[in-house]
């Protein structure tokens, strides 16, 4: 099978039942996508598949044949962070940081759909992404801050 991971084509033949999460973490070494529950309950494993937020622990790698997968590593990196990532730092929207990549990927999908989300829209879009540190207020602020930056065009 062939899929695009963070913009690069990847040819692979994972075991038929392998979840996308395991494929990304183990075969591709992309450990930014977290395993919080492995059963579709926490959102820590959220990635984008053809732009749609997807729980990678529930998706099969083979099911993504021909599709494009984006993980946190594809959003931006420490030396070239995405506007959303910068906003998360500016608003202190990561405490332990374990839920953060999932929150960011869900937020990425939201901002692709809605340029100026209300607080309620951010909350609704991210409600499947659990956070035990209670960083929610700052996550919502960060997403709206990034949206504002992206709208004014000084985004990175």
């Amino acid at each position, binding site marked *: 099978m062939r899929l695009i991971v963070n913009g690069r084509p990847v040819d692979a033949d994972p075991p038929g039942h392998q979840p996308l999460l395991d494929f990304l973490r183990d075969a591709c070494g992309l450990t930014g996508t977290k395993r919080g529950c492995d059963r579709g309950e926490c959102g820590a494993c959220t990635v984008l598949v053809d732009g749609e937020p997807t729980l990678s622990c529930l998706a099969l790698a083979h099911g993504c044949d021909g599709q494009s997968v984006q993980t946190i*590593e594809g959003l931006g990196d*420490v030396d070239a962070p995405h506007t959303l990532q910068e906003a998360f730092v500016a608003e202190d929207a990561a*405490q*332990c*940081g*374990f*839920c953060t990549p999932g929150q960011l990927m869900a937020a990425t999908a939201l901002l692709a759909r809605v340029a100026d989300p209300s607080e309620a829209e951010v909350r609704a879009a991210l409600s499947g992404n*659990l956070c035990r540190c209670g960083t929610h207020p700052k996550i919502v602020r960060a997403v709206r801050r990034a949206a504002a930056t992206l709208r004014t065009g000084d985004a990175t």
Partner: protein
Amino acid sequence: MTGPNRRFVSTTVEVEGRVETRVVEVPAVTLAPWDADAALTHVGARAQRVDGLLKAAGRAPYTTDLARPGMAHAVFVRAQVPRGRITAIDTTAARAMPGVLDILLAADVPARTRLFLPDVTYAGAPVAAVCAETLAQAEAAARAVRVTIEPGEAAITPEQALAGAPVRPGLTSNQSGGAPKVRQRGDVDTALATADVVLTREVRTPCVLHSAMEPHAAVAEWSGDALTVWESTQGIFRVRDGLAKALGLPVHRVRVICEAMGGGFGAKNYAGPHTFTAAVLARRLRRPVSCVLDRAGEQIDSGNRSSTWQRITIGARRDGTLVAIDLDAIIPLGIGGWDGGPGDLFHELYACPNVRTREAFVYTNTGAMASFRAPGHAEGAVGLELTLNAIAAELGLDPLVLRERNIATRDQKQDRPYTGNRLAECYTEGARRIGWHDRAGRTVRDGRLRRGFGVAAQVWGTGGGPPSYATVRLNTDGTADVLSGTQDLGTGTRTILAQVAAESLGHRLDAVRAVIGDTATGPYSGNSWGSITVASLTPAVRMAAEEARRGLLEAAAGILDVAVDALETREGRVHVRDTDRSLAFGEVTAKLGNVMIMGQGARGPNPSGTGIVTTGAQFAEVEVDVETGVVRVVTIVAVHDAGRIVNPTLAESQLEGGIIQGLGYALFEERALDARLGLPLNVGLHDYKIPTHADIPVIDGHFLDGADPLANPVGARGIAEPAIIPTAPAIAGAVADALGVEVSELPLTPWRVLGALDGASR
């Protein structure tokens, strides 16, 4: 540096609500405390979390992300019954499965690990570990292990345990200590007999689960006879010592590393079965082994906050002065844990001469309790505060006024003053922020959507104390490292240490880096628990940095040919006072080549004869739908006095986090147990509800300005646990206010809210 003139003395340290006396070292140097007016640049600033971008980029190295070359994966086989004796374990089929490398049973592990004991004492106990090339293979093989257990009589409830046989071998009584723990000051019975009003209430609080997003995890790797373990932990040194003891290794052959960890909240304080399993398997297989709990394992077998039953009697005078507080409580601990109960708070939150608490800690055949953010206090606050509201109603007093009349100005537990307690200001400021005194106009007691307000207070010992050490070193380019064997749970420890070191050195913040989370590189610092890390460690960092600064000034004085005391440091430069001559730190260190400027810091003892606490008050506004029973928290206002706040942004994050966990405790969270098997019925995060984005109220978190220079030379106290204590009782009080009906059991799920209404209309 001349030979230090050290002494060893005794001091008291409060950890997780427990007061301990310890022998400690008095450092040779005493630091002049930074008082409230000290002119500080980095300390108190809203510095960005130094590892924030690493986390936002998905690059922070969590234990669960490690992939060591050749790493194998281990998982547990768990007992499915609460009590019995293992009579057979058939591993034949499992061993033949693809990728299986090893299976550990009791006979394969050192006795001190206490792993896989033949006596099963709770459902979910590990009985074997299966190791395979991949996690999926290990999980598949674990399902093929056949365990035969001769079932025994289990005690799931405390009532069953108090009436039945010992719940585990070696116990003579299922009550910790054989009898309830009774503590009394004054004479409660006499005071109650003469009080103007006496009320008794029964309150129940649920058993709740820590539910950190990163589960417990260890990766073990041997190199010759030396063991390295990466662990998701709140205490690298405790894990190291636990491993050394269990495996019979000298401590210097065990290294424990925790670079980043995904939450602990009290559940990750020790080496656990997963740690020992990874270490033993790694030695047998001569390759690295990872052992990570799956979500079910995490929820069943990594600790919990005990449920409580509390019967509270309060006696007061007509003017609201409390004259007696009496608590009778039953606290089921599960199969282990410690006596962390609601009683402590009753002895210290309010001024009251007569207080008695009687707590029965009962072992049962269920998963063990573990410290969970403000263990005991969070539970006790629910019982005490709800009963206090009842007293206020009975006396026709505003609940806030009643509380303001009974502020504890002294540490009554140990009959000594506090270094500071500004709870009165917290009440005033919080009341102003939520509009407490004009709430009548916003309170709604009829129609479908009711609205009410609640208030609750908090006290928690946050003095920290020794031992805690740090080293500060200047590198050849003038940058600085802070080394300490602490760890950052997500609280921002790395950032705080860099801020304090930059302040003390007179350096730029971005030129200082904290190197933590490794027992091999940092001097000892204790567990990150009990809200004590800032108070325990930052004075040591300050001492180390000041010593390094003195070294730097001596070197610079030689280069500039001036006296040392003509020099000062600011933002990474050494300035000759009142001149424009200066040298960058890097220019000084470059002249030294590899001569190292280093400072050592040790935390000195706490002042004797004083209590050190963080206090605060929280106010809740809620909306209750009386048709569905759904509670929506509208606003939480929190005002706390935690001494100097080293970084307001990070402190607010932690405060909000505690409040949100408290909201879950108030409204959603409750481990439901199968009555026969004692197995949690809601082990997943879908059924065990923690708050999500949709549940979050407006949170107005505020810290009083100031510092506590009597507590320690940095003037800071802790906030992690204080944050959660008042939230649930403030919310429950607000729900009762909205309904006009008392509530007595958490969490306030819709059916409990409707039940409270039903009960009242009947």
